[in-house]
């Protein structure tokens, strides 16, 4: 067990305690606010997903909201079918308005809960694998990755808006039934739902941390530092990059599903430019190098937004912009960087003192017994 892993475990444990105990305790384990808190957790999860590809492998994904939005739509499709069971043909209402004859084939499988849950993870992963192979085989890096991911997200968003007959268009998919999870009817305002979201978040983080601290994670961090050198060692850089990219997409897909559950609708804005850059902001504020820190960044910024936008209305946007510029300028590693620097400093002080103490002991041992002051 190396130090990095130990520190990860401590951070993860503290984070789990914060999410499972402190946050619900802040609202007395009940009430309307739990729903908002669950929303913050879902957003924290997508920030953590971005940190996995950005902070670990150096892949700046400006289209992270694509996989997030796909997850949200998948969940919404299932719930919409549930809500439309009594309608003619079991078709969603917006299809009826636009004269769709029968439920399209790609909607059919979403009747099944198991398929939906699987698809919510696997379809984002599949998209990311295809895109990852496409990009990384061509050794695309840096800003070009950012532009490609961004363009693809905008293309998909436009497609969803334009195919109103099948996707609900600009309005998205609204009027959803509550999720029935193997006989448990999920109420999004209850504590149990909050714990469901928290559980998913912690599981996603565990998967991510497992990857980061595995051998593949070591290779990924090496790729971030110098891809060329890793390639010379014989590693298939593209494969590792795709792995990080796809894992991140899977986590984002789950976050998207949870987000659709919390808000009870899916909208094309979920995969828009603003939310995508907001995800980058959250991860950067928390600290892109650590998934836990990025998740905290997502939760923290959104919680602050919830509180402060009531106080300052639109001016909150202004404050967010200023805070963000300040973080980029003065805390390039985010709040995590601040903590890490403090930790390194304390560690250095500690080793120094241990070394000094050892020296003194050795000096003492070297001197004749009669010279030792403490001998009585």
């Amino acid at each position: 067990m190396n130090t990095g892993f130990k520190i990860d475990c401590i951070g993860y444990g503290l984070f789990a305690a914060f999410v499972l105990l402190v946050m619900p305790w802040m609202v007395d384990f009940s009430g309307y606010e739990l729903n908002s808190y669950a929303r913050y957790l879902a957003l924290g999860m997508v920030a953590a997903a971005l940190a996995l590809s950005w902070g670990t492998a150096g892949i700046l994904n400006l289209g992270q909201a694509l996989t997030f939005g796909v997850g949200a739509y998948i969940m919404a499709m299932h719930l919409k079918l549930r809500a439309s069971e009594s309608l003619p043909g079991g078709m969603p209402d917006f299809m009826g308005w636009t004269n769709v004859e029968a439920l399209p084939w790609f909607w059919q499988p979403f009747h099944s809960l198991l398929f939906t849950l699987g698809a919510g993870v696997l379809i984002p992963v599949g998209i990311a694998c295809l895109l990852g192979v496409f990009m990384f085989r061509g050794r695309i890096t840096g800003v070009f990755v950012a532009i490609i991911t961004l363009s693809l997200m905008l293309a998909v968003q436009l497609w969803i808006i334009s195919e109103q007959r099948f996707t609900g268009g600009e309005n998205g998919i609204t009027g959803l039934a509550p999720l029935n999870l193997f006989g448990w009817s999920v109420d999004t305002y209850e504590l149990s739902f909050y714990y469901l979201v928290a559980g998913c978040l912690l599981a996603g983080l565990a998967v991510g941390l497992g990857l980061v601290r595995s051998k593949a994670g070591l290779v990924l961090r090496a790729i971030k530092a110098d891809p060329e050198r890793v390639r010379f060692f014989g590693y298939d850089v593209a494969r590792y990059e795709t792995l990080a990219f796809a894992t991140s997409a899977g986590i984002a897909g789950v976050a998207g599903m949870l987000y659709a559950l919390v808000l009870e609708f899916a909208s094309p804005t979920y995969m828009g430019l603003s939310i995508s850059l907001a995800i980058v902001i959250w991860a950067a504020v928390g600290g892109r190098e650590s998934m836990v820190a990025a998740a905290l960044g997502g939760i923290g910024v959104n919680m602050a937004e919830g509180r402060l936008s009531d106080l300052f209305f639109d001016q909150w946007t202004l404050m967010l912009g200023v805070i963000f510029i300040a973080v980029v300028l003065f805390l390039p590693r985010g709040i995590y960087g601040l903590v890490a620097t403090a930790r390194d400093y304390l560690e250095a002080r500690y080793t120094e003192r241990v070394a000094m103490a050892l020296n003194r002991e050795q000096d003492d041992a070297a001197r004749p017994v009669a010279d030792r002051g403490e001998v009585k």
Partner: protein
Amino acid sequence: MEAWVNEIFIGISLASILLMVAIGLAIIYGTMGVINLAHGQFVMLGAYGAWLLQTQYGVSIVVSLPVVFLVVGLVGFVVERTIIQRLYHRPLDTILATWGIGIVLEQLVRNVFGSSSRYVARPEFLEGGYIILGAHASSYRLFIIFFSLGMLAATWYLLFRTEFGTKLRSVIQNTEISECYGISAKRVYALTFAYGAGLAGIAGALITPLVSVTPTMGTSLVVDAFLVVIVGGVGSLVGTAASALMIGEATAWLSYVLNDTTGRILILLGVIVLIRFRPQGLFPDTVRR
């Protein structure tokens, strides 16, 4: 025949708008490697400048251009001096910082002018239009086409025929040695950024009669302009012009044959494929790096 010419003209007209917005961005990205996501907000500032001058003082757009250029350029100068200057060694972080700047500028404008959309009238002498080869061409769009080419020529002149351009190119090639010869790299960068921002302001002022002026107008523009710059090739003015023309024409034709949305989706996918197989752009600058 007429429809053909019409579509070609619409394409050129779209291309000229893209070119105007993209030149400033291309200069900033090509010379400093800064990915300026606040560029769209500089365009928006220019648009509001033109609107303000017209509604408050009755100044025509064409007359307001020098003022807008100077004011938005000044904003760019201040932004460079306070923020961008500290980020030259971390180019990817400029994406984040400039996005933050964009948020701030957008919200400031919303605070001052509100979020309702504004309209600006085109100058009187550019009302009406001509019939060219059977297609209708409005004089204002023709004016923009020629003006964008003028901006391109002026930028080329600045870069390759003035002392400032020589200094800038030498700083790009080797900062340390240029500084040994007494060129202040900081000053050159700041002025270049200001020039790019000023161009964005002019672009914003000129497109006001064609689009509605809102605080959020910048965001979609910056994405399009970025695609143009990347497709054209970093630091290549010819490339930027060629890719603006290509994307403009493609947009016009695809929207004509299919529809607006499908056209845009295809353009985005086309850009993705192009970047994948030619990340250096259509006309890579062989001198740099």
